[in-house]
């Protein structure tokens, strides 16, 4: 069930909170799983180090929190919201450990400013859970032993989830390409490909 989760981090609040929403009530009224469409606000300037209150929609929950302009989505997801499935790797868009879905498409959370993710639909690995149940792609990774150390796994799963959301019946050739933005130093690629294939086939059967 989608519910409202308020995260008001008051640490480090400075003089003015630019970009603070006027009419928070209007946003609250639409809290059912996704960002509202069509918002227009006047441009304001966030000063260096200044915190602004933004709304992030993560795993169908609405989070209101204070962020500095230079914070990456990765930092906010892990350090402010405690969603630690998203891993810190290279922090330069080269390894894929921090892959999350933004509007159902895989992106590197280290290369996206949190302020840029405002009002977009963000999905982390935690969002693939159904309560205590793991999702079908996660299950396929376990069934096919698609990891060794496991550090890249959450990112691999999110890349695979992004593929299957866009293309539920991918050709075999599409699978290596879909996870080609995710490094696995243990070399579990053959098992990863098999797991994604199995997850796709299972979806197709349903």
């Amino acid at each position, binding site marked *: 069930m989608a519910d409202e989760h308020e995260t008001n981090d008051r640490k480090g609040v400075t003089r003015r909170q630019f*970009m603070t929403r006027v009419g928070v009530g209007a946003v609250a009224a639409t809290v059912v799983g996704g960002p509202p469409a069509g918002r*227009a*606000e*006047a*441009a*304001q*300037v*966030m*000063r*260096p*180090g200044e915190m602004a209150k933004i709304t992030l929609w993560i795993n169908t929950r609405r989070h209101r929190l204070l962020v*500095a*302009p*230079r*914070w*990456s989505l990765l*930092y906010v997801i892990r350090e402010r919201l405690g969603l630690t499935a998203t891993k810190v790797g290279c*922090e*330069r*868009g*080269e390894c*894929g450990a921090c*892959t999350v879905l*933004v509007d159902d*498409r*895989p*992106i*590197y959370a280290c*290369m*996206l*400013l949190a*302020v*840029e993710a405002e009002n977009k639909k963000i999905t982390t690995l935690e969002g693939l859970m159904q309560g205590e149940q793991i999702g079908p792609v996660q299950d396929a990774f376990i069934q096919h032993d698609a990891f060794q150390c496991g550090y890249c796994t959450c990112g691999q799963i999110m*890349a695979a989830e*992004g593929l299957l959301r866009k293309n539920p019946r991918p050709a075999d050739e599409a699978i290596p*390409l*879909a996870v*080609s*933005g995710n490094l696995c130093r243990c070399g579990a690629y053959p098992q990863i490909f098999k797991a994604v294939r199995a997850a796709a086939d299972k979806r197709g059967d349903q």
Partner: protein
Amino acid sequence: MLPDFAYTRPTSIKEAVKALSAANARVHAGGTDLLGCLRDEIFSVDILVSLGRLDSLRGIRQTADGGLRIGALTTIADVAENLLIQKHYTALAQAAGEVASPQLRNQGTIGGNLCQKPRCWYYRGEFHCLRKGGDMCYAADGQSQFHCLFGSGDICYIVHPSDTAPALIALGAKVRIAGKRRQKTVPVEKFFVLPEDDVQTETILAAEEIVTEIILPPPPANLKSRYRKVRARRSWDFALSGAALALQFDDSDVVRRARVVLSGVAPIPWRAPAVETVLTGQALTPAVIARAANAAVENAEPLAQNEYKVPLLRGMLKEELGAFG
């Protein structure tokens, strides 16, 4: 953590141009190149001007004359996956599909791809090189395996990192630019700057100017185009060498017009008129293809470690021209 900066997200192009007129302001489009540069302290920024709210700069539309307009904020992935582009401007779809990795294609924009900074490891490293306002180029006598064969002017040996730009030039695209005065439209070919003209910049954009749109002309009849990128691994890597080829054939398979633009071998997307001359008026026989491939490398000036690019470029062009059918 990135160095600190101010941030604003204007709601109109006019506001964005105004915000960019502030000292040391920079455009944020997809952010994939920008954030890397800031993290590595290649340059600093006082204020980031995000284009994120300029929805009018997103999307691909057909123009009245049968051409195409691609909003500058359209993602690389959307360009690669667009059916009209795949069909009529194949080289562009192929080039977009070869950019970086899936995640970066989902975030990076076509406008940003034209405006990205070079990947020379001295420029990206802790070297105060010419391009960063220093007084020497470290690649000239240094590690040069990924550097250019053409166009350095013996000044700076970067290669332009874009895959989409060579394809756009081969297809005769123009770029629309908003600035303080009225919008202007410039051929993509004229958008890039050689080291001999200004070693500290890659494009003609003024600080407050924004790329708003790419305009593709209507595809001529019998136009076939391809983009080929050679790199060490299939994902992420930039081109060791590449080529966008746009050939217009007549009914008897003779090349009527040719545009050949190379990537990975010059500080700007490198038009190869000598190759175009060889191809024009000819059918693509093995002899013509061999002559064209040789013409491409005629004036190459390799450095100590990038001589491999000469046979690579020649061989790649042979393969690509042979693949037109």
